[in-house]
């Protein structure tokens, strides 16, 4: 599992300075909040650090995920009342799994695997839970990534965030930005969501909090043009990383998907290897439509990884199982709350355990 890498600093709880005044974009010029002080870039050869997760945040992850999956765990307790695993129990297990949004096909697959392992064997709830967590963790383990997404050869590393409306792109970028800055990276943000009202302002607030420059333009400006200029500027200022926020778009809106393709084309004019990563941000509440989202965003946006937001609610995010199985995409982060520290590198075992409540 990768971490934030580079220098560790105590992660500040941002809740206290949440209410900073908002910067409103009025000028048609590029707005860029300059950093008062430049943080010196670290040497790239520095040994990789472990993820910086405070104990409190860790608890948040488990609490969040556990709350969300209480019913799978409870369900198992109430289903497996017999001594041995039988057809009836398996059928009910399949239904429990479906409740996590993993889809009928994946639920059947896991149920079949459970049958293979434990049919006619002891079916004590804790045994079944452990076995289930094991199966799920094994399925997800290949998609827990050890790749450092910030460590490419070219500077700046360009990372683009895509997804449907309201999936949590801007908030995720805000959290990532803060974490990167806290770990000594010199970064820039680009507010390429020029469509939604006050989207730029939202990112500007995050930029201000993290003390990083944000490239923004007036609403309605050409998103591709903005991304192009942002990359130009990030290059000129020798940034390590450029995070590009894009407008939320439903994957069946062809013209909006075409706009996404244009943003990428335009970025490539400056750097053929960019964007180095394109992350699809998914809301944990999403159902089977996530598959269609992934397909379309892979096609138009060249998605290289997944981030799942809002896992601190009642939704379980079981769709990750179906998605990874189908598209073999790594899962980079999960969001388990509104604080900066609530964005965590994805860990298959922890996710599986929390999903089945152990």
């Amino acid at each position, binding site marked *: 599992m990768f971490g934030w890498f580079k220098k560790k600093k105590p992660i500040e709880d941002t809740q206290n300075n*949440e*209410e900073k*005044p*908002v910067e*409103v974009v009025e000028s048609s010029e590029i707005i860029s909040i300059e950093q008062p002080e430049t943080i010196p870039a670290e040497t790239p050869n520095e040994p990789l650090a472990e993820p910086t997760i405070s104990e409190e945040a860790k608890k948040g992850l488990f609490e969040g995920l556990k*709350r969300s999956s209480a019913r799978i765990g409870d369900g198992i307790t109430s289903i497996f009342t017999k001594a041995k695993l039988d057809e009836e129990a398996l059928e009910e297990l399949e*239904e429990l799994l*479906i*409740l*996590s*949004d993993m*889809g*009928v*096909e994946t639920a059947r697959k896991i149920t079949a695997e459970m049958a293979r392992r434990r049919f006619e064997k002891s079916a004590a709830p804790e045994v079944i839970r452990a076995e289930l967590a094991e199966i799920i963790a094994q399925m997800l383990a290949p998609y827990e990534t050890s790749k450092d997404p910030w460590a490419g050869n070219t500077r700046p590393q360009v990372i683009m965030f895509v997804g*449907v*409306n*309201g*999936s*949590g792109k801007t*908030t995720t970028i*805000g959290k990532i930005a803060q974490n990167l800055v806290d770990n000594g990276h010199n970064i820039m943000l680009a507010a390429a969501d020029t*469509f*939604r*009202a*006050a*989207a730029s*302002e*939202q990112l*500007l*607030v*995050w930029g201000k909090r993290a003390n990083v420059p944000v490239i923004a333009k007036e*609403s309605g400006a050409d998103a591709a043009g903005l991304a192009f200029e942002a990359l130009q500027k990030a290059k000129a200022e020798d940034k390590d990383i450029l995070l590009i926020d894009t407008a939320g778009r*439903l*994957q*069946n*809106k*062809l*013209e909006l998907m*075409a706009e996404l393709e244009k943003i990428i084309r335009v970025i490539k004019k400056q750097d053929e290897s960019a964007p180095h990563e394109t992350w699809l941000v998914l*809301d*944990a*509440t*999403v*159902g*089977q*439509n996530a*598959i*269609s989202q992934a*397909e*379309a965003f892979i096609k138009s946006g060249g998605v290289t990884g997944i981030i799942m*937001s*809002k896992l*601190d*609610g*009642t*939704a*379980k995010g079981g*769709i990750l199982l179906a998605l990874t199985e*189908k598209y073999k995409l790594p899962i980079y982060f999960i969001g388990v709350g*509104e604080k900066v520290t609530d964005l965590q590198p994805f860990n298959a075992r922890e996710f599986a355990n929390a999903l089945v409540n152990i």
Partner: protein
Amino acid sequence: MFDALTEKLGGVFDNLTGRGALSEKDVEAALREVRVALLEADVALPVVKQFINTVKEEAVGEKVIRAVKPGQQVVKIVHDALIETLGGAQEPEDLKISSPPSVIMMAGLQGSGKTTTTGKLALRLKKKDRKKVLLASLDTRRPAAMEQLAILATQAEVESLPIVQGQSPVEIAKRAMQAAKFGGFDVVILDTAGRTSIDEEMMVEAANIAKIANPSEILLVADSLTGQDAVETAKRFHERLPLTGIILTRADGDGRGGAALSMRAVTGLPIKFLGIGEKIDGLDVFDARRIAGRILGQGDVVALVEKAVENADMAAAEKMAAKMAKGKFDLDDLSMQLRQIQNMGGLGGIMGMLPGAQAAKKALDNGVVNEKIITRQIAVISSMTKKERQKPDLLNASRRRRIATGAGVDVSEVNKVIKMHRSMADMVKSIGKGGMKGLMQKMGGMKGGMPSEEQLKALGEKALQSGAMPPMGQNMPQGLPGLGGGGLPGLGGGLPGLGGFGFGKKK
């Protein structure tokens, strides 16, 4: 795997309709398919079970077995059960507005679309109900949420409460009600911060706001792409807040259906509106029949007609209809048609609503057919002179070359447009007089009841046979007239051509 529910059920009932009589086994097999289809469409499991039981009770039995058309009967039972679960055939009640200032409170998860929907609701109240509306954002958490609402208020041309930093949501709510009272507002809409249903502190806050503001409506805003969690979220919000209704957003996505069924079923709350698109006027009244029809693969014809009426410039449409009645259809008319197709959400938007056009839509989604073609075709027509547009016969080779240069396309593109126009003009000629009148009567007759099996079949077959499918892939222009069996020429022009959908004659 992620086919729309429409396609899934279409497949299931194709098997059923092909037989003479139905056994209990048949019904069960079909319902197993329905169960999976519903789950894949994100209908929550408990709701699916309940739904399947209802349908099974109805479907297995003499009524069906002795029926002349068993498949048709099952379709009807499923259809009725869907409508029932979705809230019945009657229109949802309009928003309850109490003595001014009446308060509407919006609640929901983060990112469900509350703020955008608040703006849309404000526009509707202002335009349709002639209310003086005040918007207030109580979202002190998400950066720039207040600014977002202020911008939306400007777009809807309503007022928003001045932003005062540092106030708590409850304080803002009080200030909003005060401002509404003194400002003579009819309605004040309180947009609240997104919250998870298990965030105790935030749920208490929401309950407090509801207590203080005493809203006439508390609306749960939910994403229609929501999966199994729809049940949980709706239930938990309903436990903590006296909700009065649900608004489903992103209903223009391709994941519609499931969440609507689930939320309605567990809360019993009416789904009042559907959020369609990102523009401020993208709010439709929820119609259970329409959604059930969509799910069953009848296509959303009612919505299509409404959209056509909405988008057509009526004066221009009437003029064109008059022209068409005389059998005339020039390139200006074609250009107008193309523009209206664009206004209606492009081909993708239209085909999503058309019965039997799922496959064509897929071709479109897969990029086989490019939406940009329409833009190009409009450009071609724009590059013609007025005379040429009225008298396409003038278009000789050199004129065509000039037009191609002007539009920045190959001459072959120009030829395609001309060819398309010719075939449409021929069709218009054949429609002749009385087409419109007849059509309107037919549509009127359709609206209420279930279409017969013949009609359903005709729908699918017409869409297929009319040439919509094969030419679409390779040759857009020829596909266009065929799309709705000759429907499109009339579509924008105020319905004349809609008759081609096959509603007209029974076979």
